């Protein structure tokens, strides 16, 4: 017996040694650095560095604090903005819609009462919550960020843990600066190789989700890696991480590198002086070790990715722009009903090609694609061109700062000349909550993140695509392959 026990303990200790020697993923390094308490059978208590709040998912949480008689535990680590409900024209006037105005006013009142900084309408830092966090240098490598909004995954582009939470959890973070969370599994998605011309970050993520399905990432923290991802700008990386939730993932993240550090440097709330040097030294330790174990690894080739477009009613229903809509018969019997329902809603049929299909609206904006690079890329393309008469185009900057920058660079004039009016910042037509809605039955090529039924307004029909595909389609009036605008030399 003794021998067996000795043998057993040897194996155990050998196993533990191995455990210690085993490398860690980027996700685990950040998670471990934020665990306040870990108890068997309980979710971890995870410390949250910054809590972003907005007008829609916070009022009930503030009410909860009042009922409990609690303050906001760390108001200085809470940042508020108004984005979902705001109009994107005439922002200097009172909000016309009564309930929207009430919700925005309520946020102002709550922030004042609980001592929270608010970048509300009229403030030079106002904008979509996932645009302003990074642009102000609040989002940094190694941090933990939450917000009552599923696209909080955007902030993971900096090598951070960032995810959306419900309102009960918003109240939890307000009350404690912590969140009870079980550690998700880890997935690595690698993209390697050279992208075709006209293909960008949005096409990469739509392609990935078309392969994983809208549920394929559920239960996972996804790290994006590979040389294609590495070659993207911070804004492209944000587009990728933003849509992690569209495959169901808890969050998405990309290891920080020089591109990340360069982006954060000098921003309003970025560390300065000695603190900066210390921060950078730490950020350089943030990567998945070569021998780190992932629960799942997926690999894709950049060369396989075409400009993408969705045809259905979830973001997993995407195809290359030249491909045809799948046939109902290609799905399992139990899935055919849901598939047919989606095609009926979209007014499409089996095997239809979207290329050349007339469209009514083009929306360039949302937390996925409303940053200055998106606007520059669109402006460069539309310069000297004009939209088709049949199409209404909205270009909505992600923040006041993006809007000001676009105007400083003269992009607004290019847009105006092309029939692409530049509006004021907000979530706009991404979610059919404010005044910007796509009318029933109309087709919109949209750079946003969701094509759910009614997402852009009751009975609206959404084709998700990149800013370039959206801009090209606005010019022609039909779903367009951006590559048809590129000269042969550009296509090489």
């Amino acid at each position, binding site marked *: 017996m003794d021998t067996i026990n000795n043998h057993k303990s040897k194996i155990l200790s050998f196993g533990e040694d191995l455990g210690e020697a085993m490398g860690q993923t980027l996700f685990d390094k950040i998670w471990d650095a934020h665990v*306040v*308490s870990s108890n068997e*059978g*309980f*979710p971890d*208590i995870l*410390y949250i560095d910054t809590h972003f709040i907005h007008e*829609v*998912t916070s*009022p*009930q949480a503030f*009410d909860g604090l009042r*009922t*409990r008689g609690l303050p906001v535990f760390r108001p200085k680590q809470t940042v508020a903005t108004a984005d*979902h409900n705001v109009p994107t024209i005439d922002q200097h006037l009172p909000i016309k819609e009564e*309930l*929207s105005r*009430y*919700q925005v006013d*309520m946020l102002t009142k709550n922030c004042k009462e609980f001592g929270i900084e608010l970048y509300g309408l009229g403030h030079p830092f106002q904008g979509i919550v996932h645009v302003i966090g990074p642009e102000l240098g609040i989002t940094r490598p190694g941090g933990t960020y939450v917000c*009552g*909004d*599923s696209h909080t995954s955007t902030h993971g582009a900096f090598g951070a843990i960032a995810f*959306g*939470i*419900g*309102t*009960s*959890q918003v*109240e*939890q973070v307000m*009350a*404690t600066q*912590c969140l*009870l969370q*079980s550690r*998700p599994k880890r997935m690595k998605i690698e993209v390697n190789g050279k992208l075709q011309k006209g293909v960008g970050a949005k096409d990469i993520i739509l392609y990935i989700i078309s392969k994983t399905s*809208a*549920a394929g990432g*559920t*239960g996972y923290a996804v790290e994006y890696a590979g040389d294609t991802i590495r070659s993207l700008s911070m804004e492209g990386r944000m587009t990728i991480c933003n849509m992690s939730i569209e495959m*169901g993932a*808890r969050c998405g993240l990309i290891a920080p590198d020089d591109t990340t550090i360069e982006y954060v440097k000098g921003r309003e709330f970025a560390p300065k002086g000695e603190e900066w040097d210390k921060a950078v030294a730490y950020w350089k330790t943030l990567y998945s070790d070569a021998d780190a174990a992932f629960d799942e690894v997926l690999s894709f080739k950049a060369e396989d990715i075409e400009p993408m477009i969705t045809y259905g*009613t*979830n973001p*997993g229903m995407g195809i290359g722009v030249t491909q045809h809509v799948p046939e109902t018969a290609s799905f399992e019997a*139990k899935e055919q*009903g*849901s598939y047919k*329902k989606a095609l009926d809603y979209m007014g499409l049929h089996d095997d239809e090609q979207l290329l050349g299909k007339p469209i009514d609206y083009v929306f360039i904006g949302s937390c996925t694609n409303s940053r200055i690079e998106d606007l520059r890329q669109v402006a460069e393309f539309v310069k000297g061109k004009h939209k088709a008469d049949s199409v209404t185009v909205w270009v909505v900057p992600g923040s006041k700062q993006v809007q000001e920058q676009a105007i400083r660079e003269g992009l607004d004039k290019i847009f105006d000349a092309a029939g692409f009016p530049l509006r004021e910042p907000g979530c706009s037509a991404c*979610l*059919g*909550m404010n005044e910007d809605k796509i009318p*029933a039955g109309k087709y919109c090529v949209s750079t946003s993140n*969701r094509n*759910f*039924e*009614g997402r852009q307004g*009751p*009975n609206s029909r959404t084709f998700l695509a990149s800013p370039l595909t959206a801009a090209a389609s606005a010019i022609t009036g039909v779903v367009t392959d951006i590559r048809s605008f590129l000269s042969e030399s550009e296509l090489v």
Partner: protein
Amino acid sequence: MSTKIFKHIQTSVVPLPIENIDTDQIIPARFLKATTREGFGNNLFRDWRFDGDDNPKQEFVLNNPNYGGKILVAGKNFGCGSSREHAAWAIADYGFDAVVSSFFADIFKGNALNNGLLPVQVSEDFLKKIFDAVYADEHAVVEIDLVDQFIKIVATGEQETFEVNPYKKACMTNGYDDIDYILSKKELVEEFEEKR
């Protein structure tokens, strides 16, 4: 602060055999402007339930008087999309105590658990059996027991066990709340902040 207690229910069910039901279908964004948690049930599945003139669409299951009960049974990947807790509030406010599906989106599942609405994940096979049972007899009764973690089709006796996080199970069966739990560890949070 205590939340709703859930231990056991036995009721007829409402079948909704559609996959990937997202939170925009459960409660469209234009109805998220309320600043309290009540009343969202009126707009549950709004655009599937009512036409543009607010007339009920007869073909939708919630408008079919033959179906009713405290359990909503839906296709896989239920609750995908937005983090809006209003989706869980709307389902609970309408009168459901549990949602059964073969797969749940992450954030929705957490939101439901935080509101005393039990998400019960079953196998594809068992989900089909429930649909078969309710389409054979619209009054078919399903039993869900959180304490012993099983779900049963009463008429046929077929049953399956389901998983639930032990901590969340304790919360739901006792009406405990996450904030109370973290507040009981507040000194650890302050220690953590000082050490950083």
